[in-house]
């Protein structure tokens, strides 16, 4: 009967979500075991927090690229906003608050400011389409990075001092403390991030993104992606929902930034240029546009890959580039897909489904 098919759809979606959470938890447990048995190299151990950062960034970007169907090349800009605002907060608060509370506050600050930036940028920009949107988001990312480079902020007994020229122009009292030092960035941020917190934040991101997709708002976002004109014809305010997806995505990128900045003693803007935005986009596309689980896995593998290729020394980035091109051709070229289908259909366990868009 009717209800059976509805139940089937519901159960399938629930199962799909749970599997995603499960993958993360299994990954966590395996890594913990490897660490405790001393089987994880120190280089890879050092990569664990960055891996979490990129997983969150990739999953959140997928909300824009895969679910909302808009190309954004400015994701690093939002990570930058989250990283800077939260590091700033942690530095100002210092030891006035207990560490846990301060870090939670830092995460919220990073998310809120990045989300606000997303909203602010999204309002004018989302009118543009396709590659134009891509280039404007790239431009915004670079602007954020550039502006952060000329901001100097310090604090003393009289309060905050801000300058856009140099540290000297802050006119701090001798007891005052410089917090943001222009291109030198922020140093002395407490190292609150660790792998466990990273994994918790990944789960939180997945919770938000997966549930959003599977809800009234998510359907509206995807409807606007599939056919804007039809979506408007059934009364969906397309721009509003595109903006929603964009802002949520920016806020989550901000969380990734928080995790990043609280993992490093010194933070500067170099890490947040368009190359990082592109890197995150590579995770999303390689993992399958719209496929949340795929972008997660691609982020883990591609972040760890250069380390694992370290034995190739100078050739590793070259190999990385070739692997990227070959994987794209293999995954996307119609000829390669046909060939794969043909080979798979000849195998004894029968035809497998062609690689395509997965639903959640």
């Amino acid at each position, binding site marked *: 009967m009717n209800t059976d098919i509805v139940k089937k759809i519901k159960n399938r979606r629930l199962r799909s979500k749970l599997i995603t959470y499960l993958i993360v938890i299994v990954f966590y447990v395996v890594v913990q075991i490897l660490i405790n048995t001393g089987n994880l190299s120190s280089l890879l151990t050092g990569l664990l927090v960055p891996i979490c950062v990129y997983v969150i960034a990739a999953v959140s970007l997928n909300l824009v690229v895969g679910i909302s169907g808009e190309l954004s090349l400015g994701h690093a800009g939002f990570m930058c906003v989250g990283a800077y605002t939260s590091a700033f907060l942690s530095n100002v608060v210092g030891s006035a608050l207990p560490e846990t509370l301060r870090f939670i506050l830092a995460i919220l600050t990073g998310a809120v400011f990045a989300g606000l930036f997303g909203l602010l940028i999204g309002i004018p920009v989302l009118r543009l389409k396709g590659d134009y949107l891509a*280039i404007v988001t790239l431009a915004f990312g670079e*602007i954020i990075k550039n502006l952060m480079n000329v901001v100097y902020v310090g604090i003393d007994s009289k309060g905050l001092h801000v300058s856009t020229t140099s540290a000297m122009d802050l006119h701090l009292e001798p007891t005052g403390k410089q917090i943001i030092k222009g291109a030198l960035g922020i140093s002395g941020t407490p190292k609150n991030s660790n792998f466990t917190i990273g994994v918790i934040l990944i789960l939180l991101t997945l919770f938000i993104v997966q549930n959003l997709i599977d809800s009234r708002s998510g359907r509206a976002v995807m409807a606007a992606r599939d056919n804007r004109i039809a979506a408007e014809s059934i009364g969906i305010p397309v721009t509003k929902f595109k903006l929603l997806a964009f802002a949520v995505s920016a806020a989550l990128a901000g969380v990734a930034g928080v995790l990043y900045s609280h993992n490093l003693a010194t933070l500067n803007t170099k890490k947040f240029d368009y190359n990082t935005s592109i890197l995150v986009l590579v995770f999303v*596309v390689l993992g399958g*546009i719209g496929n949340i689980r795929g972008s997660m896995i691609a982020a883990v593998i591609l972040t760890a890959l250069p380390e694992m290729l370290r034995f190739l020394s100078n050739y590793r980035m*070259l190999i990385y580039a*070739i692997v990227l091109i070959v994987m794209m051709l293999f995954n996307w070229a119609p000829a390669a897909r046909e060939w794969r289908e043909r080979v798979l259909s000849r195998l004894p366990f029968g035809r497998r489904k062609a690689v395509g868009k997965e639903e959640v």
Partner: protein
Amino acid sequence: MSFLTYLKDGISLGSVYAIIALGYTMVYGIAKMLNFAHGDVIMVGAYVVLMMITRAGLHPLLAVLIAMAACTVLGMTIEMVAYRPLRKAGSPLAVLITAIGVSYLLQNIALLMFGADGKTFINVVSLPSLSLFDGGLVISGTTIVTILANIIIMICLTLFVKKTKQGRAMQAVSEDRDAAQLMGINVNGTISLTFAIGSALAAIAGVLLCSAYPVVTPYTGAMPGIKAFVAAVFGGIGSIPGAMLGGILLGVIEILGRAYISSQVADAIVFGVLIIVLLVKPSGLFGKNVQEKV
């Protein structure tokens, strides 16, 4: 330094952007793809010229011709191997990411061959500089050649696109690829030709860029490539005069911003102006506005 000097520097840098942007706008208009590797072809062109002059001891002009040939072959090969198989992939993102892969590849090959340190570039222009206003404005030979090259290239390209059979085929392919195919136009050949021209222009741009800013590194082309695309968007994608004007405006804004506001935020100003232009006129200064038919 005076305003005029800055303006001259801006026009000179802008002319380089314009030449790159011409290649970008043609490729984008016809293949409908953001070729992220275009900037790196510039870098390849610059290294080839440098090698031809310093290692092979060739005459600069010959070196430039060889670089153009090398970049043409490179551009066509990239298109054939990496982009063409993905043309019917269904997602423009697939080819975008592949282009990024190609960009990494070129950068890393250069890194392995020449190292990360900048190589000092040899100015290939041996023209004397021009002094105006009793020395108030000195225009170097490089600048003169750059601006002249820009004008000549623009005129030749316009004539080529408007007057020749291949040029008209390009217009047809950019308008409607399927219809062009039905009319018997060799679409693959036309796109190949576009990459060839764009890459040859990139080689010229590489030489001029490195003559003015005489250091070449594996990453030399990346930022100018992005800025040239910004210039192309600025002027309206697909438009030859648009790319030229967009490039020059971009160069002028960048140099003036650097001189009068702050060198650190010059790029931010460039990108800020781009955003404003696009918000006011979403299809760029000379772009066509296309609306979806319901």
